[in-house]
């Protein structure tokens, strides 16, 4: 058993490099998938020995004259085994795609390459085909179709996973964290999907390897790199709301070096769900994404790569001030990531990676009065993040893989609402042991320690195990700790709302802020003496996940996962002093405790080579423990529709806002053999969810406080011609359902697109 393998993804490349020149053979064969496309990454084994290269069109020329068993292995396909006679006879080897995606490689879960099947954790991998089927342009378009994930509008387009908000989900790009959040939300619209190779979705807390933020889970976005081939692709997509998205991708490969250049321009007119008010629901914006990826083998043992990504976005819009003046807004956001990596592989047993990552994120928003263009407000935010990390993987024996990581990070922020330039320093280590004690059992144990200049130190353990009852049925369970460090805002904010006269102080500035207000004679009553405020602690969680993967025959795959997250020390604002004006001064406290728990299930069925369908279902239960306590002690009341005051009962309480108890999806994929058209039809259901308090007690406990459930019907048609040109046509929310409580849904959206692999034409 050598399931844990340091060099798993390297195999396809090595294969190519180590193969011997082969003589032309009278019986060339083609290795293709069900659509007739060549499977270039397949490897062919004769009697257990790696054999035979595959040419660019999928042709295999055999030089072997004898053998007994031939095995054809390819990632994403069922392994095919043929007798020598059968192998000799066939001209075409058609590989069957695996039901589900259990053999996709996942990096996010362990920071080493492992297949989904071998991981004792709930992971989903979306490959480029699945990504393309959504017809999406931005990351949110893809993620909203996945079981158990929701897209919520909250200071941007954020993700919700296992009932937890964007604040608690770590977003990685090629394994490196992306920075730049607005009030905790990472705006998924900042990420174009046009050069994404695959997306790894890891559910459950992963602070044991990633530290802060990875409390609900991790999204790892892997960008494309096309190996040694020269490629030049251009594409153009257009969709409703005046949205245009041209892209270009150039790949230059040689034996040793590979360079990818990528550029993506996105422009949209935005949309307006409430035309009666001034300002659009989503303002028009233009975004540029440019990426450079260079990687190469310095020598047999040394490998290096450099990744640079730049993003720039501008938006303009109007809004009405509460003083009824019309304001012009000009907002911009930019992002720069530089990520050099050096990998050293002294022997088969060791792999040492040194990674650096520097990111700059800044936003600038200028608001002026439309009447005379005088300034209403100017806000700047500049964040810098640097991380240096060294990771050593040691394959002690075929069944033990030990990983040790050490890292250091610096984070600075300089913003209008913060005083001075602020800096955080942190160091961390992580240790991980992947172990297959028995062929049917595998274990992953991890521990991470974080040492931070602001919130002290923190240890996050996790243990995960899998038991394979058979090749087709396995059970996984994990228990782990998650945490989220207080962010800059919670520590450093120094904000005064001029129009309504309240103040918000980060925990570090509260004492000083209150003293200042006291000296100015503004304070009526101090509610909590600043010296008693205490340190703001990290928000922390414990979670259990338990699931199964069950292959029924070769056609059906069932995956499910049960989870429970218990989170304490959630940070919220609370008043610390009353001002003479009647307003309050607020600061941040560790006050809330919540629980989210539920079930996620995916059922895939491959009817035949051309038709498959899947059903996903997610059940989510969430609750605020403090609210439950107040209900139990009869302290929580509501106004019913007759405006009478009654006690809230446990049955009235609907949990946290913006969480759907039930959600799910149905997907049908069909390949029409004659025309070569691929059809992907999806219905994405989001069950009813609480959107706002309407009866005065700020909790979800009234029928009027729910937004109704709804289904988005999405379709995508693609046709790939033999010369590689690809056309697509489709639409989302075809039934044009309006969801006022979910302002990120613009209504029906139609799209069309074309992809041109220009290199194909140049070569010919």
């Amino acid at each position, binding site marked *: 058993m050598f399931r844990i393998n340091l060099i798993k993804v390297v195999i396809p490349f090595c294969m190519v490099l180590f193969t011997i020149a082969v003589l032309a053979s009278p019986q060339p064969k083609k290795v293709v998938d069900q659509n007739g496309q060549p499977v270039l990454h397949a490897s062919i084994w004769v009697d257990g020995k790696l054999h035979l290269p595959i040419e660019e069109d999928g042709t295999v020329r055999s030089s072997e004259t004898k053998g007994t068993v031939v095995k054809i292995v390819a990632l994403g396909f069922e392994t095919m085994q043929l007798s020598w006679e059968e192998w000799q006879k066939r001209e075409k080897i058609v590989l069957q795609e695996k039901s589900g995606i259990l053999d996709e490689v996942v990096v996010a879960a362990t920071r080493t390459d492992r297949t989904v099947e071998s991981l004792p954790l709930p992971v989903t991998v979306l490959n480029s085909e699945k990504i393309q089927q959504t017809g999406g342009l931005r990351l949110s378009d893809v993620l909203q179709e996945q079981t158990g994930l929701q897209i919520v509008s909250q200071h941007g387009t954020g993700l919700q996973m296992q009932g937890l908000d964007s604040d608690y989900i770590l977003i990685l790009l090629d394994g490196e964290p992306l920075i730049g959040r607005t009030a905790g939300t990472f705006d998924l619209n900042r990420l174009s999907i046009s050069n994404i190779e695959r997306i790894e979705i890891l559910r459950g807390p992963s602070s044991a390897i990633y530290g802060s933020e990875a409390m609900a889970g991790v999204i790892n976005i892997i960008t494309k790199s096309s190996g040694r081939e020269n490629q030049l692709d251009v594409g153009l997509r257009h969709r409703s709301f005046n949205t245009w998205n041209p892209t270009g991708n150039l790949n230059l490969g040689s034996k040793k070096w590979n360079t990818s250049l990528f550029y993506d321009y996105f422009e949209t007119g935005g949309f307006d769900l409430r035309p009666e008010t001034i300002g659009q629901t989503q303002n028009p914006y233009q975004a540029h994404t440019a990426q450079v990826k260079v990687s190469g083998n310095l020598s047999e043992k040394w490998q290096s790569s450099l990744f640079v990504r730049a993003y720039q976005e501008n938006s303009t819009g109007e809004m009405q*001030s*509460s*003083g009824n*003046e019309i304001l012009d807004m000009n907002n911009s956001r930019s992002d720069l990531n530089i990520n050099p990596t050096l990998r050293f592989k002294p022997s088969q047993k060791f792999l040492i990676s040194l990674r650096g990552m520097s990111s700059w994120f800044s936003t600038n928003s200028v608001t002026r*009065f439309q009447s005379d263009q005088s300034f*209403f407000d100017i806000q700047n935010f500049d964040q810098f993040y640097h991380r240096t990390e060294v990771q050593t993987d040691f394959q002690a024996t075929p069944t033990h893989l030990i990983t040790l990581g050490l890292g250091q990070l610096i984070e600075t922020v300089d913003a209008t609402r913060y005083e001075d330039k602020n800096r955080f320093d942190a160091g961390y280590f992580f240790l991980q042991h992947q172990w297959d004690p028995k062929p049917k059992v595998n274990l992953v144990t991890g521990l991470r320690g974080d040492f931070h200049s602001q919130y002290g130190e923190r240890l996050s353990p996790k243990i995960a195990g899998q038991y394979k009852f058979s090749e087709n049925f396995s059970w996984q369970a994990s228990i782990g700790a998650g945490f989220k460090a207080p962010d800059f805002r919670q520590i450093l904010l120094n904000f005064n709302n*001029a*129009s*309504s*006269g309240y103040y918000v102080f980060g925990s570090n500035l509260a004492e000083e802020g209150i003293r200042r207000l006291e000296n100015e004679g503004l*304070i*009526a*009553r101090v509610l909590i003496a600043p010296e008693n405020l205490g340190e703001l602690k990290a928000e922390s969680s414990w979670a259990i996940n338990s699931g199964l993967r069950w292959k029924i025959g070769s056609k059906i795959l069932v995956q499910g996962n049960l989870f429970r997250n218990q989170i304490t020390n959630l940070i919220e604002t609370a*008043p610390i002093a*009353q001002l*003479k004006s*009647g*307003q*309050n001064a607020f600061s941040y406290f560790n006050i809330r405790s919540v629980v989210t728990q539920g079930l996620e299930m995916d059922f895939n069925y491959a009817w035949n080579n051309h038709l498959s369908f899947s059903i996903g279902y997610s059940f989510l239960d969430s609750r605020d423990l403090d609210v439950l306590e107040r209900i139990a002690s009869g*302290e*929580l*009341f*509501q*106004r019913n*529709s007759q*405006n009478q*005051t*009654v*006690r809230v009962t446990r049955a009235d309480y609907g949990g946290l806002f913006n969480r759907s108890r039930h959600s799910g999806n149905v997907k049908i994929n069909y390949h029409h053999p004659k025309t070569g058209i691929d059809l992907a039809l999806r219905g994405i259901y989001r069950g009813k969810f609480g959107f*706002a*308090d*309407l*009866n*005065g*007690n*700020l909790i979800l406990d009234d029928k*009027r406080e729910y937004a109704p459930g709804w289904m988005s019907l999405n379709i995508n048609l693609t046709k790939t011609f033999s010369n590689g040109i690809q056309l697509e046509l489709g639409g989302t929310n075809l039934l044009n359902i309006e969801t006022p409580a979910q302002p990120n849904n613009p209504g029906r959206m139609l799209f069309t697109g074309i992809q041109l692999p220009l290199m194909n034409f140049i070569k010919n």
Partner: protein
Amino acid sequence: MKTNLKSIFYLLIFFGAFACDTTDDAQPRVELEAILVADLAAPNDVIDRNTGEVEKVNPFQYFSLEQNAIVSETDDWDLAFKGTTIRTNSSKNVKAAIVSGIFEEINQVPTSATFATDSESTFAIPTGSGNGWYNYNSATFTVTPIPGRVILVKTTGGNYSKIEILSYYKGNPPADQIDPRATPSGHYTFRYVLQTDGSKNF
């Protein structure tokens, strides 16, 4: 200004009126009548939202629970309203306390209630969302009375009163029909019970 004071709730239920023995109080105990005050207009100062400067100062509206009427500042007022702020008449030793419970069920002043008077800088009925009588919902931009908050007041006449604020918007609309931009705010609808015999029972 028109004072729109109406009494609506006539719940005249006689406790023990028919069943009590003659050894009890000579007078049968009458359930006190709840008085509804509708749309007491007490708009806040007009503030320039862009600069935060006060453009127009509005007066407090002085209300006497004893008289069930708006009175002038020099009269025996109990409560004064402006915006979300409710003052109590400290010069006449009016005291107030906030308790939690269902209005009808509060049949006496709880021993736990702590009465306070307004000082120069503090209010017996605390201001600010969640502190006193209202919540401000930043998602819907509305001010809603906190369900189950009952204000107890010891009036200028030394009598106890219990008050429940029902709405901050004109016409007492259901909370889901409030449009914070269009519905006039600063219009109090509340009901109260005044115990005129000086006891702590309602």
